[in-house]
Structures are given as C-alpha cells and as structure tokens.
C-alpha cells in the first residue's frame, strides 16, 4: 500500500494530515460563539474548555503514565487559589500583570507543588502512588480550612478580573473576551500536551507505564520518568485552575477536594484514557450533563453514574475506545454493514432508556416533591405522578425496549464480525 511513503513523510516533517485536526479544532473554537452567542452558552463552553485542559493533564498521568491519582484536583485547585491571589494583588497593589498570563503563573505555582509532592509520590507506581495521592489530597483539603490566609476558609478567595493591565485594549469585562482567552489557553495547552507525548520523555512514559522494569534496563529510571510526567501534569492542571479563577472569580475548597479529584478521574475514564482525544470527549460530555441535563433533572448524577458504570463494564476503552473500534471496519470499507443494525438497535434502546428514566423520575417525584404536589412533566407530557398508569407505562416501555434490543443483538454481533473480517480475495 502507501505505507512506505507514509512512513518517510512521518519521519521527515509534520504532514498536513497531522496538522489538520488542530486547524479544524482552532476554527471550531473560533466560530462556536457565532453559533451560540448567549452568555449562558459561553459559560458552558468555558467550563468545557477548563475541564478539557484538566482532563488532558490528568490523562498524562492515567493514560500515558499509568499513574492512578485520587488527588489531582489539588494541582488545579492550588493553581486556582494562586491565580485568585495574584488577581487580588493586581487589584490592590497595582501589579502590572495582564490577565492572560495568569494561567501561566497558576501553572508554574502548581508545577512547584507537583515537584515537591512528586519527589516522593512517584517513587513507586500502582497502589502506593494512588494511596499517596489520596493522602495528599485529603491533607491539602484539610489545610484549606486551617490556613485561612491562603485558602480563605469556607468562603474561599474571590476577586475581580478586570483590574489587570489591558491586553491589547481588552479588559475582560465581557464574557466573549473571557471565552477567547480560555479557548486560546485550551488550544495552547492541548497542543503542548500532545507534543509532549511525542517527545522522548513522553514515549518513555508509555514504556514505563507498560513495563517499568524493562525501561530501567534501557537506561531510564522509571521513577524519574514518572516524576517528570507528574510535574508536567501538575503544570497543566494548574493552568486549568488559572482559567477557572478567571472565569468564576472565586475559588474555594470545593475546587481541590477529593470529590473534584474523583470527578476528573471519571471524566477521563468515561472519555477513554487510551487515546489522546479521549479526555476531550469525556470533558465535553460531562460538562453537557452537568450543565444542560442538570437543568432538566435533579438526579442527573444518577444517570452519570449509570453511564460511567456501563462504560467501565462494557467499553473499558471509554467512548474514544468505542469510536476507535470502528477503524478496522472503516479501513476495510465495511462500515456500511453496521448502519442498519445500529439503526434497528436505536429504537429499542431509546425506548428502554426512556422507560427507565420514567421510572426513576416518577419514583423521585413521589418521594421528593412537596406534599400535595403530584403534578409532574416528563418528555413534554404532564401527568399525576401518583397515578399508576404512567409508572406502569414506563416499566412496560423499559422492559419492552430491553427485550426488543436483546433481539437485535445477534444481528448486530453478526454484522460486527462481518465488518471486521477482511475479504479473503483481498488478502491474496
């Protein structure tokens, strides 16, 4: 095939194909505010961008370095606190710092902290590393109520971003200005993190993840490889923290506690730790659930939990892994074989999900609505939640959907096998 030319091109210089996804992403970030110009939409997109940076940083540990951290929010949170303090110094001591460099300073602060913590936590991988990360996370969260001067106690630290040196005349009063600042940092961070994975150190992070012992017999100290990855990850997490500070102008203990650390693990795993773009998918989906779905239902976290458990159980590669499973059918030119079975699956699956949602929401309404309030609206239908009929319909829909979906499974798996099998004539 074209393999030989492809290889030489790859080794010689950056090809257009490698550059294209970045170009598309940049254009996408540029035009998004034109499509969704409302302040609410901008806020959601900023939140997404921050979560993407944080998740990509986290995946430098989890996916690329094989280090499972339960306390990575510490670096984002500490970066955020530092950014808030600098923001306040700018306001009260007239420090001549433009706002756009704040994330960099936050990143450097987090880097310093990561160097200190990493110097002992990266000595061992596996459970030891995970437990130290948990302990440090707990420790810093506890500090936040003790060291009030830095963490601001329960109220956290708040400030006003508009006192920075005007940056080419921009004072970051309007949300759209903050959006482009956040998007620019997202682009810079994502490109740098991607490039990092192509460096000798980034490659060795994979090697140490796979087989730390063998790496040591190739001249690399597994511990130092982990340490450098850890520091880089802390740096980018700090940048995310800086962006958070700029967007919300307040940082509290909630930004660095264990719940936040658990959230980023969930986001990264959901998106898929095995691929660079996995955490991006995870962060986008999570932010949508967190912002859009949470407006629709109070029990959105239940759905998130179910989605997470289902992903871990059935698609351990995450959503990115699920997508990438389709590269073989695509390369064989057999993707079309899957369209019909997927469509046939869609109806029953939606019915099943809608049924379960109905059950959950009705039960939740019965248990949690104010006494006497029995009226609820679901899927644009208003009904009495204490009636038997809606609950019965939901249960039937859930079971029927499940049953119908099960009946499509054989066809689906046959199509999957066919789509992944090369034509024998072609092989010869």
């Amino acid at each position, binding site marked *: 095939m074209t393999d030989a030319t492809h290889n030489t091109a790859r*080794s010689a210089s950056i090809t257009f194909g490698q550059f294209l996804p970045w170009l598309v992403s940049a254009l996408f970030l540029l035009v998004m505010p034109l499509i969704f110009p409302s302040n609410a939409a901008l806020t959601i997109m900023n939140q997404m961008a921050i979560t993407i940076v944080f998740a990509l940083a986290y995946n430098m540990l989890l996916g690329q370095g094989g280090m499972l951290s339960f306390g990575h929010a510490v670096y984002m949170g500490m970066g955020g606190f530092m950014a808030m303090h600098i923001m306040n110094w700018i306001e009260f001591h007239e420090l001549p710092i433009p706002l756009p460099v704040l994330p960099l300073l936050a990143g450097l602060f987090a880097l310093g902290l990561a160097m200190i913590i990493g110097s002992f936590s990266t000595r061992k991988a596996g459970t030891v590393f995970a437990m130290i990360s948990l302990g440090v996370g707990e420790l810093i969260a506890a500090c936040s109520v003790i060291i009030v001067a830095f963490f601001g106690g329960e109220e956290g630290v708040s400030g006003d971003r508009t006192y920075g040196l005007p940056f080419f005349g921009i004072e970051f009063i309007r949300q759209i200005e903050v959006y482009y600042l956040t998007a620019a940092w997202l682009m810079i961070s994502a490109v740098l993190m991607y490039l990092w994975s192509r*460096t000798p150190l980034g*490659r060795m992070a994979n090697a140490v993840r796979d*087989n730390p012992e*063998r790496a040591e*017999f*190739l001249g690399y*100290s597994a511990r130092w490889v982990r340490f*450098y990855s850890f520091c880089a990850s802390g740096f980018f997490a700090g940048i995310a923290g800086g962006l958070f500070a700029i967007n919300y102008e307040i940082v509290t203990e909630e930004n660095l506690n264990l719940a936040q650390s658990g959230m980023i693990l969930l986001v990264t795993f959901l998106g898929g730790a095995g691929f660079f773009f996995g955490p991006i998918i995870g962060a986008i989906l999570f932010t949508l659930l967190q912002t859009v779905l949470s407006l629709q239902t109070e029990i959105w976290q239940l759905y998130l939990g179910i989605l997470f458990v289902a992903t871990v159980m059935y698609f351990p590669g995450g959503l990115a892994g699920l997508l990438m499973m389709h590269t073989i059918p695509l390369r064989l030119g057999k993707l079309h074989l899957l369209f019909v079975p997927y469509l046939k699956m869609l109806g029953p699956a939606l019915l099943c999900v809608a049924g379960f949602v109905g059950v959950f929401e009705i039960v939740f309404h019965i248990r949690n609505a104010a006494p006497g309030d029995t009226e609820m609206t679901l899927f644009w239908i208003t009904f009495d939640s204490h009636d038997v009929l809606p609950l019965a319909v939901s249960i039937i829909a859930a079971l029927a959907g499940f049953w119908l979906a099960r009946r499509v499974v054989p066809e689906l798996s046959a199509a999957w096998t066919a789509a992944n099998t090369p034509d024998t004539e072609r092989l010869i």
Partner: protein
Amino acid sequence: MNAPDAPALELAGLRKSFGKTEIIRGVDLTIARGERHAIIGPNGAGKSTLFNLITGRYVPTSGSVYLNGQDVSGLAPYKINRLGLSRSFQITNIFPRMTVFENVRCSLLWSKGYRYSFWHMVGRSRDLTEATDAILEQINLTARRDLPAGVLSYAEQRALEIGITMAGGANVIMLDEPTAGMSHSETEYIVNLIRDVTEGKTLVMVEHDMSVVFGLADRISVLVYGEIIATGTPEEVRADPRVQEAYLGAALEAEH
C-alpha cells in the same frame, strides 16, 4: 575508574541468598573484552540469578561485580545500563501495548543521547527512525512494525527481545536463553544475528542448546548449584571430567 585494560566483567566472591537458601555460593569469574562467554548448567543452578546480580536487578548478599574495572555492585539497573551493559530476559520482557517500532525506538533513546528530553520530537529525528528501522530489518520484524508487541507470536517476541537488548549498542551484551522455544531455523537465524551484532563486543549468554554454545562461545563456564565448577574453552570444558559427571555428559547425551 574505567581502566582501559580492565576486563569487561569481573565477579569476585559473589553470593546471593533468598531467605536462608543461598542460591549463588561464591562465584569468581573474569570475562575479557571481546570475549563470547557462555554460562551453562542444569535447571535451577542459578544462571538467571547470576545475570540478575550482574545487571542490578538483585543486590548481591556479598561480593562484587566490576564492569570495565568499575564496581557496579548494588547499582540500579539503569545506571549499569548507562555504563554500557544491556541484557535480555529468559521470560520475554517487552512493552506489550506499544508497537514493535516503538519498542525498539525506546531502547535507542538513551544511547542516542535523548535522555529525559521533552524538547525533541521523536518523530522528527530521521536518524532515530532509520536506526530503528535498521534494527527491525535485522530482527526480521519489519512486516510487524506497526503492530502492538503484545500480539506477536512467541518467536517474534523473542526476536524483539533480542532487538531491544542490542539496540542501544552496549559493549557488554548479556542474553538469557535467547533461543529458548525457537524452531531450528529460527535458532539458526538468531545465532547468526547474535554473532554479527556482537562482533567486537563482549557477549555473555545462558544457553541450553549445546550446538549454539559450542558454535558461538570462545569460553564456557559451568554453573552447578550456585558455583562455577569449570571455566575454559569449549574443548577444555568438554573434556573436564567434573563437568562430564555433573552436567555435560547428561546434556550431551540428551542432545543426541
């Protein structure tokens, strides 16, 4: 420190115990530069343990290991590797989730001077890519270049294991049963490869296949029950009555 006329490897009074059991029971051995040295002995004699002591995987209970005259006993494996010693493993030890190409490239990085660099792009170094592809060609794995190493066949993984070991261009190469489990033709190919790439280098290898040993080794040591009972040229060792009695007689008979 790095005496130019020092032997490549020198073991002095080397001992290793696991708990109460002493596995290596006082080994003295000198291996000259450029020598191809084979270590033979029955199963469980301690050959792999001896390798692990030399290469830093285990710390000796007592005694010393000198590499090019420098005391390396108890140093971490990566430090010993940087001093120019590379080893393979009896049980295949590769990076299963990375591609075959990446496996070999990673084993080149340190020796090519990249160290902990995060300011070079590995894909942009033509030299690195060419060196990696040359090794893949040598170990006959070019066709498998972009597959994850974990999906290779056993023999292919063994070849990769050897490729990873020799990629860095170390001056002392230690191979633990490089041909174990290979077919006759694969063995022949690998032996020729080993002979080529260790030209002018020091080779220490553990090997059960006597035709490989006698075909490749300048000198042979016989390790039995944690002690070296004989060292010498293949002819001397073959003729040694103690070796005949303890090991070789049986092994040679098994060969035929």
